[in-house]
Every structure is written in structure tokens, then in C-alpha cells.
């Protein structure tokens, strides 16, 4: 199943990935190939089948409400691209 360029642009925006002209063309083609593959699912008879989100038949374990993590700011911010006054910096966020 083919996918429209415009759909690919929309997806790229949702996924926050810039696609230049040539990449967009290539990606549109290859996405079409993958969609043709996954469209094979449509032929499957799944009436009445419960979707399976996990291979395990298990339930969520709960942890006790205890503070176990100390301040690790120095170590964790040592690898950050841009930090000032203990804050992560990004280009200005406009609401």
C-alpha cells in the first residue's frame, strides 16, 4: 500500500524528525514497502481474539513508597548538552 508524501511529512513532524527532499522521497518509497508487508495482517481472521500486549500472564508489582534516590544532579548533568544553574537549557519554549 502506497503512502502519500504528505502523510510522511505529517508523521515526520509528529516524530520530530526533519526530512530533507531526497530523504523524504526515499522514505516515502520504503515506507510504502513496509506498509505493504504489514497490510498482510488484514487477511487474518481475528474475530473475538483478545489483543496481547504482553507475553507474560502477570500483573504489575507495586513498590513501597520510600525515597531511595538521593540527589545525583552533578553526575546526571555531567553528560548534558547545555546546563545552567542546575537547569537543562533549551531554545525558548513559547506557550
Amino acid at each position, binding site marked *: 500500500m502506497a503512502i502519500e508524501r504528505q502523510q510522511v511529512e505529517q508523521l515526520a513532524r509528529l516524530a520530530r524528525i526533519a526530512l530533507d527532499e531526497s530523504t523524504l522521497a526515499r522514505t516515502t518509497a520504503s515506507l510504502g514497502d513496509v506498509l505493504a508487508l504489514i497490510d498482510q495482517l488484514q487477511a487474518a481472521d481475528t474475530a473475538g481474539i483478545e489483543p496481547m500486549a504482553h507475553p507474560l500472564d502477570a500483573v504489575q508489582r507495586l513498590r513501597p513508597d520510600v525515597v531511595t534516590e538521593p540527589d545525583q544532579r552533578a553526575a546526571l548533568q555531567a553528560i548534558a548538552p547545555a546546563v*545552567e544553574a542546575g537547569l537543562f537549557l533549551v531554545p525558548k519554549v513559547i506557550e
Partner: protein
Amino acid sequence: MSWETVIGLEIHVQLATKSKIFSGASTAFGAEPNTQACAVDLALPGTLPVLNAEAVRMALLFGLAIDAEIPKRSVFERKNYFYPDLPKGYQTSQLAEPIVGAGHIDIDLADGSSKRIRIHHAHLEEDAGKSLHEDFAGQSGIDLNRAGTPLIEIVTEPDMRSAEEAVAFAKKLHAIVTTLGICDGDMSQGSMRFDVNISVRRPGEPLGTRTETKNLNSFRFMEDAIRYEVERQIELIEDGGRVVQETRLYNGETKTGRSMRSKEDAHDYRYFPCPDLLPVVLEPGYLDQLRATLPELPDAKQKRFVEQYGLSAYDAGQLSAERATAEYYEQVVASCGDAKLAANWIMVDLAAALNRSELALAQSPVASSQLAGIIARIKDGTISSKIAKQVFELMWKDGGTADEIIEQKGLKQVSDSGAIEKIVDEVIAANPQQVDNYRNAAEDKRPKMLGFFVGQIMKASQGKANPQQVNEILLKKLEG
């Protein structure tokens, strides 16, 4: 031509757990930026969430308190969008299978009637961090301390029809969550945030297009924002325009609202069940256990206050709304034995003092035992009500018990009739003209003129003469 307002609320309530919903970092307010954001909260590669048991308990307790349907199983989903205060690029929330289903909260309206506001559901989710926009020269600074704090998002049906109803609901909800102890209720710290969905319509017509005004963190702002938006929508329609479905912000200081910078693409959150978390399934019997731990809720407490303490519905409502207030009140009553006096002192004098000093009850310099002490001394005649106010003021400023202050400042009421009689005689003797005027005045003019003598007597006794006795003796002497 009349308009009907239709209001639905979405309220984010921060749960008062010690650690975050999916990590062991602290949730304490006011820490230095990013000192309470661990690897999980920063969404480092390879990190995984584990669910906080207390967040589950608190959410379920809320469900029980609002008589909600509580399904046996609930599922976390990922709500995908990009924002710097959302480290994973998705928020772990719930959609198809929330932890608490449909319930209701009843509110009391000004006319004394009660209205049921239906809750559509409440779900668990994680809070995002904060963006700070000043001081960084064209950049924003991100603090992720708040990221991962557990929230329940409570969604109502659009059952409210006025700002008053919405505020009454909000206050009732506030009372419930603080009474349950699941939220500290400190709205200035962001513990409760309101989003208001508003539409207008002509009576009988289908629902109009609604707008959402986000992140209101005071009852006042919420009320103002609703009025503002209703007016805006009505004006817009009456001018021939159409309401656009949009998200808006309201500035409580400037009292203006605006549309949020519209996102280029409509939000497609692409929800799907979070594969790092398994379904939350309740053990049989857990809900019953939990139900047994429910504290007395505001409605029940109000009823009891009316019955037990003989208070008016209004007074009972005021005193039962906040857990802290109710506890304080009952402690005072238990100590001093006078429910009515206690009610008055708390609702009037204490409230005014707290307001003036901008303090919450929890920070009151006058403890319940101390206030009870004052009331006890009023009851046993040691001091008059007027002097009591003085004692209270001194206590507020410098602490101490009622007895200590009365002793130190020599404020004991003079109830010795002999002493009072002496003062009355002196005042009468010193003011012969006023005495004559009084004796010659008409019946109905006399009570007012009495005030002059009382004033003089009080002055002469530094306010300590027992007012009842003063009245009795004075009247006897003046009228013979």
C-alpha cells in the same frame, strides 16, 4: 434571550506520596532544581518504571470516597507528544482502562439545595517537569524535580451550569482529597490544578462548541476565568461569530484570557498500552480493607456537626470543609466544652487573624488547646468576651496560655459586685447631668444612653468589669 452555560472540569490532583509514581526520587516541594530527578525521571536510556503502591492506594481511596465503580484491572498507556518538560517524549497515563470509573460528588448550592455532579472517571498519571522562561537569554530552563510526581486526573461530566457550581464543586473536591489525606491541597504549590471546559447554548439547543482553559490554580481564578470565557463566547456568538474549539490560558492578575499558541498539528497522542508496565489488578478483598480505612468525609462530618454540636448547616459546613479546621474545632470543643463559642471564635477571630498574617491553619501560632483555654475563661466568667479578644491578640503575638496572659496583664474580670457597685456609684456621681437626661428620657431612648455610663464604667475598670453585672447594677441605680 437567555443563555445556558455548560461546564465540565478536569482536575489534576498531586498525590501526597513521598516518592514518585514510577521512581524512588523524592516528591518534596521546593528543592533545588533537578536534585530530585533520578535516572528514571530524566528518561536515561535503559531506565524503567515501577509503580508506587501508595499512589494506587490513594487513587482507590478517592474512588471509594466518591462512590465510584472500581474495575478489577487498570492499564497504563503512553500519551505521546514532545515537550521539554516531558523527558520520555510521552506521558505515562491511563485511557481505556482507568483505575477509577464513574462516581459522583454532591455540592451544596447557595439556595440550600444539593446537586449531584457526576464524575466520568479518575485516572493515574505522572506529572511533567517545569519550564522556567526568564533569566536565560532566549532559552528556557527545565527543572525535572516535578517530573514523575503522581497525579490523579479527575474528569467530570459537563454537569455544572454556572461559575458558582463549578467553584462549589472545586471546593468540595478540595475538602474530600484533603480529608482523605491524599493531597495536601496547597494550590499555591500546584497541588491541585483545574482545567475548565466551557460552552454556551440557548436553552434546549444541543451543546455548543467548547473551549478549554487550562491550569487554573485558585478558586478565585477559576471563577473569574469562567465568567470571562462565558462572556467572551456569548459576545462572540451574538456578534455573529463562532466559537472555535481551542485551548486557552487565563491570567488571574491581569484578568484576561488568550488562546494558547496553536500547535501546528492537531494533537495525535497515539495512545497505546505501556509495555514496560503490566496491568494493575486488585487483590480480592483489598477494596473492602481499604474501605474500612476511609475517614469521615466532609458531607458526613457536616451532618454530624449539626447533630452533635447543634451548629447551623452553614457553620457546620464551614467547619467541616477542611480536615485541619474540623480537627482543630473538635479539639477546642473537647477542651472547653462550648461548641457554639468555639465555632464563633474559629470562624471569626481565628480566621481573621490567619488571613491578616497570611497563614494556613497548620501554621497558626495559637493552638487548639490555647484557644480552648480562652473560651474556658470566658465561660467561667474570669474574663469578658471583650477582654478575651485582647487575650487572643496577645497570645497570637507572644504565645502563652490564657491563664498566663490573664495573670501577667491583670486582665481578670472584676465580678465582685461590691467593687462594681463602687465604680457605678462613682460614675453616677461624676455625671449628674447625664443621669438626669437618662431619667427624663423616653423608654426607647434609654438603652442607647446607657452606653455612655457603661463606657465610663469600663474605662474606670480598665475594661475588666463584668459586663452583665455592670448592666444589672447600673440599671438598678439609674432606675431605682
